[in-house]
């Protein structure tokens, strides 16, 4: 992605994805604390994956001449997390939100950024399916989108 040919729509979509990644990094930190064994190992791997994605997005935005959106000091969790079940539900929700954010990246006009967004969607959808225990037909879209 060149620093000169990036439109405001692309920057906006990347910023939204970055915000979702920041939230995921925070959220996995919470979820991981309530998980044990293989689930904790998976949460740690996913936490690292989101850190890598965050760093990638920040680099893309800087290259585009934009200032990457910063992480919030803290995030309001969507539900109380106090055990493995709620921690797993949080991981699913985080991945769903990240997938949806990258769906916005796929809509930009830059072909390379589209491809990047689509690959990131696939990665997040895979993690979501793993935590959820099942796949969905249209990752990134709300369940009601095509009903």
């Amino acid at each position, binding site marked *: 992605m060149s620093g000169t040919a990036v439109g405001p729509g692309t920057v906006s979509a990347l910023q939204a994805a970055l915000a979702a990644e920041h939230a995921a990094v925070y959220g996995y930190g919470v979820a991981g604390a309530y998980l044990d064994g293989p689930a904790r190992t998976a949460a740690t791997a996913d936490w690292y994956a989101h850190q890598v994605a965050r760093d990638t997005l920040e680099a893309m935005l800087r290259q585009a001449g934009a200032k990457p959106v910063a992480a919030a000091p803290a995030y309001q969790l969507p539900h109380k997390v106090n055990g493995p079940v709620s921690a797993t539900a949080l991981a699913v929700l985080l991945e769903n939100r990240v*997938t949806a954010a990258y*769906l916005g990246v*796929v*809509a*930009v*006009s830059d*072909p390379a950024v*589209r*491809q990047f*967004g*689509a*690959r990131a*969607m*696939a990665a*997040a*959808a*895979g993690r979501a*399916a*793993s935590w959820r225990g*099942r*796949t*969905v*037909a*249209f*990752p*990134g*879209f709300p369940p009601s*989108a*095509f009903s």
Partner: protein
Amino acid sequence: MADRTRRGVLAAAASLPLLAVSGCKGVGALAPPPRPGPDVRVLRAAIAAEEAMIARYGTAITRFPGLAKTLAGLRAEHRLHLAELRTRLVIPPGSPYRSGFTSPSPRPAGSPGAAAALPAGQAAALDFLQTAEDSAAAALLRGLPAVPPSLAQLLASVAASESTHVAVLRSAAG
């Protein structure tokens, strides 16, 4: 959604030449319609790929009843993909470019007439399906630059779904 609008535009654009000449020289005087654009070709390919996947799963479900539940779940998602992809494509009846195109009207997919070749053994079949899912997802990603944003989002979502199928199949293979 924007796609409903897009469908309307496609249908309207297809009817414009007819309206312009009606009452003048008749349909026979029309120049051939423009060839389908790259987005239509990508969409057609995606539809054909979904039909092929549904047929493969149909064969696998029949051959490996022990995996039927898992495979039927994946096939159901492919059927949803196919149904949604079909809604994005409107080709006027009578268009010479309709030939070879699968009707967008709903019809049973993966029906007995659509049997697909699959390796004989269960392990080989599951491996084959993984490769097919991977290839289908990769083809969708290759088509992204050629399509409008809303279709790109649908194709990316379908590709992501197919990527998750690979993991399910790998798990089923043990």
